[in-house]
């Protein structure tokens, strides 16, 4: 298949670029770019998790930033208690947190997954436009909750310094942190690819294409959709843990509904249901924002119509356009 080959070439070129990017940045004497690229990787991870439920499960979640924010808060809160020696409230036993990534990050995934379980179980009682509005509303609920919780900074958030501790790797070094983010993104990519090809993935994709049919064949589809939603929430939580380390700050703004909108846009820009497209979409949107912000303070005035244009005229997304018919995995 010729087009399949095209997809392979694009993926290999992309991977090569990501691998040598810090070297290029150093050669070009702009180490700042490593930080920008790390941000791209982290958002790509979040977008990837959204593409799992959107592109393969047909669930238009407009609250994905909530799980990212939760993951970020887990890291910051654990570090906060470790630093000032206080105990975490409402937990059985007395634990004063941790600064270890190997404790923080898995916990961020667990918390992201747990909240996804509750929000998903409620939201999946409905479908279509209700689902969009309900996921949006629940995300906004978490946002308001964190805004009004003075214990963890309220509106002002928490700062995180130093970054999480990982054996053998110093995350405070930007290049090391970049490669950690890259490895996690690639691991997630491989895992989600396998997931959508698995029996579970076939059921999930069947639910997207024709849920009524799936149910009348004998599959309780909601359980599978909810499981996918939880997995996506956990991956988004991991993205949040990375994001907290990247910005060295956590605030309710991370959960704001416009952030959810941005992650959704990344998926669309890259191409719904393409996985690799999530990376392309994250890169495009973030670099576009950087670029436009350099030109004018009012860059949103260009971004808005650009989005309308993309929706109206470029449905397959950038990756879909690059890789042709074989971009998707259906």
């Amino acid at each position, binding site marked *: 298949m010729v087009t399949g080959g095209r997809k392979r070439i694009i993926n290999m070129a992309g991977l090569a670029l990501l691998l040598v990017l810090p070297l290029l940045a150093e050669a070009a004497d702009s180490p700042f770019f490593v930080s920008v690229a790390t941000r791209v990787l982290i958002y790509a991870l979040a977008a990837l998790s959204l593409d799992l439920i959107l592109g393969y499960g047909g669930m238009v979640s407009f609250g994905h930033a909530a799980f990212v924010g939760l993951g970020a808060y887990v890291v910051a809160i654990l570090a906060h208690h470790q630093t000032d020696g206080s105990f975490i409230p409402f937990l059985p036993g007395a634990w004063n947190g941790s600064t270890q990534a190997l404790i923080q990050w898995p916990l961020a995934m667990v918390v992201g997954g747990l909240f996804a379980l509750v929000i998903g179980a409620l939201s999946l009682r409905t479908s279509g436009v209700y689902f969009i509005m309900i996921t949006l509303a629940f995300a906004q609920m978490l946002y308001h909750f964190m805004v009004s919780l003075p214990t963890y900074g309220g509106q002002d958030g928490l700062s995180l310094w130093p970054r999480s501790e990982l054996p053998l790797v110093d995350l405070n070094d930007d290049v090391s942190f970049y490669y950690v983010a890259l490895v996690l993104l690639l691991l997630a990519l491989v895992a989600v690819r396998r997931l959508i090809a698995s*029996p579970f993935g076939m059921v999930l994709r069947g639910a997207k294409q*024709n849920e009524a049919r799936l149910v009348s064949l*004998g599959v309780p589809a909601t359980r599978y959709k909810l499981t996918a939603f939880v997995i996506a929430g956990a991956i988004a939580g991991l993205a949040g843990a990375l994001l907290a380390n990247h910005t060295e700050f956590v605030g309710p703004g991370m959960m704001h509904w416009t952030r959810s909108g941005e992650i959704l846009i990344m998926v669309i820009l890259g191409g719904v249901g393409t996985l690799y497209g999530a990376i392309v979409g994250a890169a495009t949107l973030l670099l576009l924002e950087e670029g436009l912000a350099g030109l004018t303070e009012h860059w949103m005035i260009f971004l808005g119509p650009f989005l309308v244009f993309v929706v109206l005229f470029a449905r397959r997304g950038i990756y879909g356009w690059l890789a042709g018919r074989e971009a998707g995995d259906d």
Partner: protein
Amino acid sequence: MTDAILEAIGLTKCFGAVTASDGLNLAVKRGVIHALIGPNGAGKSTAVAQLSGEMAPDAGRIRFEGRDVTDWPTHRRARAGLQRSYQITSVFPAFTALDNVALAIQAQRPHSFRFWTDARLDDSLRAPARAVLERVGLGERAAVKVTDLAHGEQRQLEIAMVLATGPTMLLLDEPMAGMGQAESRRMMEILKPLKGEVSILLIEHDMDVVFALADVVTVLVKGRAVATGAPDDIRADVAVRRAYLGDY
């Protein structure tokens, strides 16, 4: 009626002022092809939707294989062997024919919470799926995407999917809808050998098909079963003529 595999007892379903099922009683015997006929709007599809569990009746009970399944969700009835097809072809359009049938087989497994193996390399799904496609005459078309299949082939595919689940009872809602003569004949060739092996409730408009296939015929008018009997008896029945002539 102990030899009935599927029974509807007093099924009632209203949509506002419209009564789609009006105390419907129906008993399908094991191993027969039981046709459900009636004029447009008689409530045939509504009856099937209630039997399959996709629509909850306002009143009445449904028994399948001797068990009361009225409160069972659709997927549970399907797993118990009560499968259906739709008047408008309902398959997975982005998948290939083989994927569709393999997914139908997978649907009968205890669960699909298997996250790591490649479903398309799983021979325990693919081999039986291929066999069923052969059986309905789609063996050559296994790798073709549904959207590239002809209309008649899509209908055959849907039958292949429900057969692949190993059903004990099929609810077929106009399986020949929109088919040409040749395609209809082929569909009849697929359905005929099922007699005895699987019980079938068949909704069909084409009387030739009904009289060629069915062992028992029930006439539905305004949500009620007005006559049930052997095809020849029904042909002669006054109530049936009235139903179709509309002077009741």
